């Protein structure tokens, strides 16, 4: 346990690779059928959306209601590029382009609005997402309200795994970096952060841009799996759906977002046989969870295999920071 590399291998890479291989084998064996694959796809997309919004809202403390807008940009970019260049290169290019345009929009919107504080940002981001949606609805090249179809499907389990794990790891590394610490300082107390030399606007814009990038990537994953995209799919309610996952998992907890994405997919699946009351039960469950866990499932703590007794580091101070 002394060697940190071995410890990382054991708590991170081995379980990840195992998960990948096992699911891949189960898919090939037909145990994981087409329906379960769609559910896994939904979970993966929701994880990327939630984790990227968590960076903005949970870690940096900027209440954004516009994540569906970034998702829409990514989805349309991926769809338009892959429909024209129907190849794996077109798919990767579209995914990257979607992420980059979303990041650029996030940067341009963030620069003026993130100087605002608190609730104003929520309104500004809400407006941004609505503008994006209405533009998509009125442009000729996006085919207006009918949207784009059929979008070639390139996403499979391997891509979902790589993109989801990649997004979570990159955001995790960012949060642990110096810039990430700055962002958390801004969330905790903007004035105090400023007084010790944190460039608060820069921190906020950086987190917002990175969050927007991954929101765009998630949109691309969505477009390349679900065949049809329409502007109305990226409305205000979609932003709320993503926010629900983040708040449910815990603001400032990446593993919380991941768990919440799983949990909501499972609840949704279990409720499918009751079409009439499904959405009522779903909402009721959310209310109950929020009453008993107002800070979200994990609060701002992280769940990690390192917390398992046998794998825990001996030094208490380090274990303390892991858990906090």
């Amino acid at each position, binding site marked *: 346990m002394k060697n940190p590399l071995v410890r990382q291998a054991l708590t991170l890479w081995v379980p990840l690779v195992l998960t990948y*291989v096992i699911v891949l*084998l189960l898919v090939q064996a037909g145990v994981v059928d087409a329906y379960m694959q*769609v559910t896994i796809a*939904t979970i993966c997309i929701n994880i990327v959306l939630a984790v990227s919004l968590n960076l903005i809202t949970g870690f940096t403390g900027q209440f954004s209601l516009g994540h569906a807008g970034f998702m829409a940009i990514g989805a349309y970019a991926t769809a338009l590029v892959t429909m024209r260049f129907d190849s794996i290169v077109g798919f990767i290019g579209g995914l990257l382009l979607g992420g980059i345009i979303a990041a650029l929009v996030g940067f341009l919107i963030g620069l003026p609005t993130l100087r605002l504080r608190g609730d104003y940002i929520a309104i500004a981001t809400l407006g941004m997402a609505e503008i994006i949606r209405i533009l998509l609805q009125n442009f000729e090249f996006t085919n*207006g309200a009918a949207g784009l179809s059929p979008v070639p499907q390139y996403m499979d389990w391997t891509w979902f795994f790589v993109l989801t794990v990649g997004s979570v790891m990159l955001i995790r590394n960012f949060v642990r970096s110096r810039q990430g610490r700055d962002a958390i300082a801004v969330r905790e107390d903007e004035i105090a952060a400023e007084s010790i030399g944190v460039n608060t606007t820069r921190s906020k814009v950086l987190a917002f841009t990175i969050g927007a990038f991954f929101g765009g990537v998630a949109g691309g994953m969505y477009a390349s799996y679900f065949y*049809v995209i329409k502007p109305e*799919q990226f409305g205000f309610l979609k932003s709320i759906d993503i926010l629900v996952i983040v708040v449910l998992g815990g603001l400032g907890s990446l593993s919380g977002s991941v768990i919440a994405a799983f949990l909501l997919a499972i609840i949704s699946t279990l409720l*499918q046989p009751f079409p009439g009351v499904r959405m009522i039960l779903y909402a009721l469950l959310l209310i109950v969870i929020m009453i008993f866990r107002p800070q979200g499932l994990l609060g701002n703590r992280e769940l990690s295999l390192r917390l398992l007794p046998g794998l825990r580091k001996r030094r208490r101070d380090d274990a303390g920071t892991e858990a906090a």
Partner: protein
Amino acid sequence: MKRILTGLAAATVGLAMLAGCSGGAGTAQAPQGDTIKIGLNYELSGDVATYGEASVQGIELAAEEVNAAGGIDGKKIELVKYDTKSDAAEATTLATKLMTQDKVITVIGPATSGGMKATIPVAERQKVPVVSGSATADDVTVDGNGVKQFAFRTCFNDSFQGTAAANYAVKKFSAKKAVILRDSSSDYSKGLADAFRETFTAGGGEIVSEDAYAKGADNFNAVMTKFKGQQFDVIYLPGYYTEAGKAIKQARDLGVTQPILGGDGFDSPVLAEQAGAQLKDVYFTNHYSSADQDPKVQDFIKAFEAKYSAEPNAFNALGYDTLKFVADGVSRATEKTGEGVQRALAETKGFAGVTGTFDVDENHNPVKAVVFIGYDKDGKLFSEKG
């Protein structure tokens, strides 16, 4: 440490062997047991829940009738119903669930074109037909890559409706000039407007002016005032009843007297509520008319009113026809599998439903007549076949 890794490796190898043994995945199989399972994949909550619910009402009525008459080859129809939440991705998910887990022989729905399109790739892959009673966009069953083998519908498409309205304008009102007011947030509205424009101008007519409103608009005074200052013979208003009712009322209040034509989006009692006494000289294309004296239609209306205590609308009627259409396909299919039903549906000839008698053409569209429903200059309701 080493032991853990060895254990994990062994588990992986074990799993791999297990996977190798259990073989390939099965696709959709023949329905087993003594029922015939048909999936309903409809919008029961969300934005367009009214369409989904209305369709399902018609479908359930039809299923009861088929079962009461002894089912299909002695087997009862069993409906497996899910809610797409008016979300296209959820429609894909549930279509997959219906085809792979519930192993239905055919999926009916969703009601909207976007939702329907999201289920077609699943249908093609699982080889189970999907049928919609109300997905009217032109490219639902056929696009640049040819006809989609496993997609069917029992309603005519948007361009057919727009074309019929344009012909009606020329024939009935000798219209030479028209204005178009459409809903910019709806692909349905765009489809109708495009077809109307094309047919109308091809016949020597002229579109004097074209304008659009957004979903939820309630003030049409500006656009109607603008129209009033122009010379034209008819207004084409391909939109939904919520906005159309208000637009009609405001047009008449402002003294715009030209006939107003619309599409099946007008078909709701809400239209008359919104427009009130100003609902005059308004005509729209529809799938069926409750005033039709055909005994088949009258029997349907009676049965529907007995079950739901309400007058059926076009979605009810189309839902009803869609289930009967599928049941007819299943009973004619030599093999009771998705592929067998697909072949039977594609060969349908002379299917007699309450929305008309039709054949299925090579693009999987029904070849059927359009009905015009109109409120004449005195506001009196009438209908005629187009």
